């Protein structure tokens, strides 16, 4: 590893952890959400350093998208002004802090103390292609399980979050020309 890349790694590492801490320290919900997005982007960039190009870019893509949506939910549901307002919405701060530190000591200690085995095997020439072949070949079963799971999630989330079905919107025989908006006349019927 060249010194330049090493420096890049450390910068990204510091950014990712600092942004992660900022999530629970800043006063604004928008800032908290986007701090998390920065943390993800930094980790995605570290993945790029580890030659995981596809996974790294996908992480950035998905997480930025997710945080953009999350910001809306934060502002919608937090019972607080989304402006730059000092906020403290924590319970059991000390206990959580102690526990989190404990987790860190155990994990980091483990990482440093364990005698990691030597590297086995060499990475494939084109990692993205090899990933595609794994997904479509030997590990197909994994993806076959993941996709119905994702679909089930979509359906379940919609069922949970939507109070009204399509019959409420399009009438008893689904015949209404335009869907009724929520809260409009006849909605409760």
């Amino acid at each position, binding site marked *: 590893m060249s010194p330049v890349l090493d420096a890049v790694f450390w910068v990204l590492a510091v950014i990712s952890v600092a942004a992660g801490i900022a999530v629970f320290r800043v006063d604004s919900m928008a800032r908290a959400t986007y701090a998390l997005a920065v943390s993800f982007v930094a980790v995605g960039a570290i993945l790029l350093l580890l030659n995981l190009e596809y996974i790294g870019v996908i992480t*950035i893509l998905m997480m930025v998208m997710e945080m953009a949506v999350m910001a809306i939910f934060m502002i919608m549901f937090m019972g607080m002004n989304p402006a*730059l307002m000092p906020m403290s919405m924590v319970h059991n701060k000390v206990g959580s802090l102690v526990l989190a530190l404990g987790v860190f000591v155990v994990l980091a200690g483990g990482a440093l103390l364990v005698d990691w085995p030597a590297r086995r095997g060499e990475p494939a020439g084109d990692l993205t292609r090899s990933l595609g072949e794994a997904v479509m070949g030997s590990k197909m079963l994994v993806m076959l399980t993941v996709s119905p799971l994702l679909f089930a999630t979509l359906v379940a989330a919609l069922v949970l979050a939507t109070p009204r079905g399509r019959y409420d919107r399009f009438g008893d025989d689904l015949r209404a020309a335009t869907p009724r908006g929520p809260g409009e006349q006849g909605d409760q019927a």
Partner: protein
Amino acid sequence: MAEGIIQVGPLGTVTATVLLGIVAVLAAAFDGAVGARLQGRRTLSGAAAPVWEGARLLRQRRRTIVAADSLLWRIGVVGLLVVALLKVAVVPLGAWTVADLSVGVVWFNAMDVMVWALVWLVGWGANSAHALIGGYRFLAQALSYELPLMFALTGPAIAAGSLRVGDVVAAQDELWFVVWMPVAFLVFCAGVVAFSVWGPFGAAAGKDIAGGVLAELSGVDRLLLLAGRYALLSAGAGFAVALFLGGGSGPFAPSWVWTLVKTLAVLAALVGVRRLLPVVRPDRLAEVAWIVVLPAVLLQLLLVSFVVVQ
């Protein structure tokens, strides 16, 4: 590394930046010229608009607004230009490219998702109702255009069997992808217009909300955002050329000339569409995007997959 693609060093990055700037200014000049014609003034006076507007915004002061989240606001304002530059990094100019990533197509996609966050931040940071509504509108619109756009990007990648932009260009030696992927091409172009907050997909900066995300911007901030919009359009046009229009292939002239010529042609069409179509409200867009456009792109992908397997 793909055959025939040369990665250029730091100097190339500077060249790419300058080139993007020139193309973006040309786009602004073209838009000004079209506008002037439409208003019945001399075309040339409209074409000079970017110079006058640039000078005007450089002279104008920036605003400070009570309780604005300046940090996030400024990130959003500067971010669009940065994202456009990062997009251009994977667009080949003839045989040269700044970064020939093995996942160039996904990289482009990741960068246009960044626009989600940035436009919303511009709307959010200003602490103004009109700007915030603009930000919300953009996210609502993004939920409609992003999925069709992703699938439209997938088409050329499947046909070329690679996510590397250089490979995609090389795979079009015999036949440009636009010929047998017209739906994907059109959807991609619509996606470019949409993530540039432009024309029919410019509801986030609509006149009805006093300019929306632009409402509170003045001076350099406004200049950066407007430039960012044109730069995004330019980057999108360049990528459309690489993905669907055979990159630099063409007779007589060197390939970089062809890339530029094609890019400018696509860009002119994207810029011009603004005057031709009314703005599409995001709630109207959602229905069409999910019920008509998305299945159409999926059918296109099915066709592409069939051809590739054959």
